[in-house]
Each structure stands twice: as structure tokens, then as C-alpha cells.
């Protein structure tokens, strides 16, 4: 009877495929939810920053500056530990998505404000002059022009969210990084598994970036 041969990386990979896929699934789900919720909330924040009456604008400004000035890790820890002290007990997954969405919203809000304010007043005046109301001007004149400016930065923010999702491992969300670490603690093959995780993160962000480029290409104004 021969000695048991040590398992190769591929053997371990095969054994760990389910936890890895689960981790990848978590990462994608968390990022997706955070980006969608964060962008929707960010639109509200951006509108408040741009068009809100001063108390609202001031509040939105305070919110964005405060959130953007706080490390994401602190936001993650705060939404898990601090919110529970005020009676809002979120699961690690919920707290994590909440923290990322809040972080995302402050960035999207600021991007939207910048884009809307960079459109010359003369565009609004031209729209008024043909009788468009403000909601119509916003929908047909301002938004289409703002979107083209927002897209590249927004894609960046989305990729940042994917990367920031790794921070959820510290509150025990079994996303890709935490799954990878668990596998490594079992197999001691740190190099190949970290490399694999890195490649997977890259693949997700590469996908996001290609998608952004595609949309950008579709919406570019010919000149």
C-alpha cells in the first residue's frame, strides 16, 4: 500500500468548487444590490444637491461629505454593530449591502450633481423658449446629456463597489474573499487560491468595464 499522495491544487480546487462558487455568487449579489440601491438613492441625493431648497441641499451636502469622508470599512462595521445598538438588528449580509449602498449613493449623488451643473444654462433657456416645462426639460434635455458624462465615472464607482465588497468578510459575510480564506486555512495553498480570487475579481470588473464601454459607445454624440 503506497503512501497517500498529497492532493494537488486542482484536486483542492475541485473539492472547494461549491464554497468558491457560493462566495462568487455572494460577491456578485452584494455588489449588484449595492450598486442598484446605491445608484437609486444617489439619484435622489444628486437631485437634492442640485435642485433642492437650501435646507434639503444642505442636508444632502452634509450626508455626501460625511459618507465620502468615512472609510468604507468603518461604514460596514458601523452598520453591523452600531445600528444594532439602536434596535435595528441587520444580518451581516443586510448590514454589508446597506453600508455599500450608502457609500455608493454619496458618490453617485456627487457625480450626478457635477454632471447636471456642467450643462450650460443656455440649454435650459433654449428648452424654456420652446415652451418645455421643467420636468420636460429635465427628461429630454438635461438627463440625456448628463448620462453621457456620468457613465465613465459611474462604471468606476461600480467597480469600486465590487472591490469594497471584500470588506464584508470582516463581519462574516461569506463572500469570495472569506470563502477563499477558509479554503486556504484548510489547504495552506495561499498563493494559487489568492491568485484565483484576484482573477475572479478582475473578471467581474472587466465585465463591468466592457459593459460601460458598450453603453458609452451607444450613447456618444457624433461630432
Amino acid at each position, binding site marked *: 500500500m503506497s503512501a497517500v499522495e498529497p492532493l494537488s491544487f486542482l484536486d483542492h480546487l475541485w473539492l472547494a468548487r461549491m464554497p468558491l462558487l457560493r462566495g462568487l455568487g455572494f460577491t456578485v449579489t452584494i455588489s449588484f444590490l449595492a450598486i442598484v440601491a446605491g445608484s437609486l438613492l444617489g439619484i435622489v441625493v444628486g437631485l437634492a444637491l442640485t435642485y433642492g431648497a437650501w435646507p434639503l441641499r444642505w442636508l444632502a451636502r452634509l450626508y455626501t461629505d460625511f459618507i465620502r469622508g468615512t472609510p468604507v470599512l468603518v461604514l460596514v462595521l458601523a452598520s453591523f454593530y452600531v445600528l444594532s445598538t439602536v434596535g435595528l438588528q441587520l444580518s451581516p449580509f443586510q448590514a454589508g449591502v446597506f453600508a455599500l449602498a450608502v457609500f455608493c449613493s454619496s458618490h453617485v449623488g456627487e457625480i450626478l450633481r457635477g454632471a447636471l451643473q456642467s450643462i450650460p444654462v*443656455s*440649454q435650459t*433657456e*433654449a*428648452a*424654456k*423658449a*420652446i*415652451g*418645455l*416645462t*421643467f420636468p*420636460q426639460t429635465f427628461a*429630454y*434635455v438635461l438627463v*440625456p*446629456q448628463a448620462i*453621457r458624462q456620468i457613465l465613465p465615472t459611474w462604471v468606476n464607482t461600480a467597480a469600486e463597489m465590487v472591490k469594497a465588497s471584500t470588506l464584508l468578510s470582516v463581519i462574516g459575510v461569506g463572500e469570495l474573499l472569506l470563502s477563499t480564506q477558509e479554503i486556504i486555512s484548510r489547504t495552506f495553498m495561499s498563493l494559487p487560491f489568492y491568485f484565483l480570487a484576484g482573477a475572479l475579481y478582475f473578471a467581474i470588473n472587466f465585465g463591468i468595464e466592457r459593459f460601460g464601454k458598450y453603453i458609452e459607445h451607444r450613447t456618444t*454624440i*457624433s*461630432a
Partner: protein
Amino acid sequence: MTKLLEIRGLCKRYGATEVLKGVDCDMDKGDVVCVIGSSGSGKTTMLRCINMLEDFQDGTIRIDGKEIGYEAAGGVRRRKREREIARQRMLTGMVFQQFNLFPHMTALDNVTLGLIKVKKMPRDEALAIAERWLERVGVLERKGHYPGQLSGGQQQRVAIARAIAMNPRLMLFDEVTSALDPELVNEVLQVIKDLASDGMTMLIVTHEMRFAYEVSTRVIFMNQGRIGEEGDPREMFVTPRTERLAEFLKSSTFA
């Protein structure tokens, strides 16, 4: 008979600076009035008050007898609701110095936007009107182009089509050739002359004295927020009654 445009005692201030100090002006249907004067005299501001791109503090502006922008309720002067002001802006069409076309839309879409969204016209009807006007101003073959792909003169002609397709009672032109290369000025002026001979009522702020002389039924000379002199261009340009106008004309190029 009610005047098409009736301005009484129009006053406009920015903070402590008085830009318009009581302007009166009447126009009948078919009038072509050119407003001349040095920069800062209030010509453009007066034009922008007529379609409420500027608020004004005193005086009244009426189009077809209807008060524009403000209403007096119980002796208190109040700005009309935004929706009502938007509706009143349909009475006028405006063409800007910098064209201000919507850069993300083709020439055709620039013209149909107001027809479809404001006038709630069916798409094919709006297209027919837009194409007719683009043809009138000579840019129909460029209808699928974006503003960035058009010359300044073409852009300005599209802008004229966009404004006039809405079938306004009064067209406002705000130094529409000032941003154009000299060789493109005439194609735009020619379009305006054609509209004038069609009987379109137009109020034109311009620095083109030769054009003002040729096209207008009446000329208004603005000076420091007031009307300095007004009358028939053939008389005003030849024998100015005031010192200020004489000086102004001397300093202007009568090209």
C-alpha cells in the same frame, strides 16, 4: 384694436443696477422691429423679459392683450405659475446668439421636440412640419446630422426652424449673427429677410446696421436702459435726432 405686443414701463434691476428704466414699446402684426444700441444698453434684457427668461420688477408686457409673466391679484403683483409661464412662452419663439441647439439630438429632432412634447402633435405631423421648415431655411439635407456636425450658419438656421415651427405670434432674435464667422452671416440674415417678407412679426436685436436698415419697418435705439430714439430706419439712420444715436451710428460699421 389690441396690439400684438404692448410693453409699458418695463423696469428690470439686478440688485442695485438698473438695466431697464421704463421701456415702452408697441408692435402690430407684421412689424419687423430692430433694436440697436451699444452693449449694456438693455436690448437683450428687454428681449429676454418678453419670454420670461428674465424676471422684471415693474411694468407690464402684453401679447395679444394678455399679460405675460405676472398677474395682479388684490393689488399685489405676483409671478404666474411656472406651468402658465411655460404655456405663455409658446406665444414667442426665440433664437439665441450661441444657437443653443440640443447637442444630443439631430437637427430634425431639435425641431420636432417642442412639437411633440409641448404641442402634443402626432409624430408624423411633427415630422412634416419640421421638414417643411428645415427646407425653408435650407438645411433639409442635413436633417439627420447632429449640431456638432453642422457649421455655425447651419446650426443657427436649424435654431430658427426650431423656434418658428412652434408657430409663435412673435419671433425674438437675440444677436443671432454675432457668434458667426463673417462669411456665414449672410445666409442667416437672408433667412430672416425671407421670414420678414412672409409677414412674420419679429423683434430683432442686432449689430448689423445694414441689415437693420433694410429689413425693419421700425428701429429702436436703446441707450442706458431707455429708448433713446425710435422711428423709420430711413429717417433715423440718415438724420438722427439725438447726439447719442449720431455717435453710435458713427462708431458702428455700416458694412
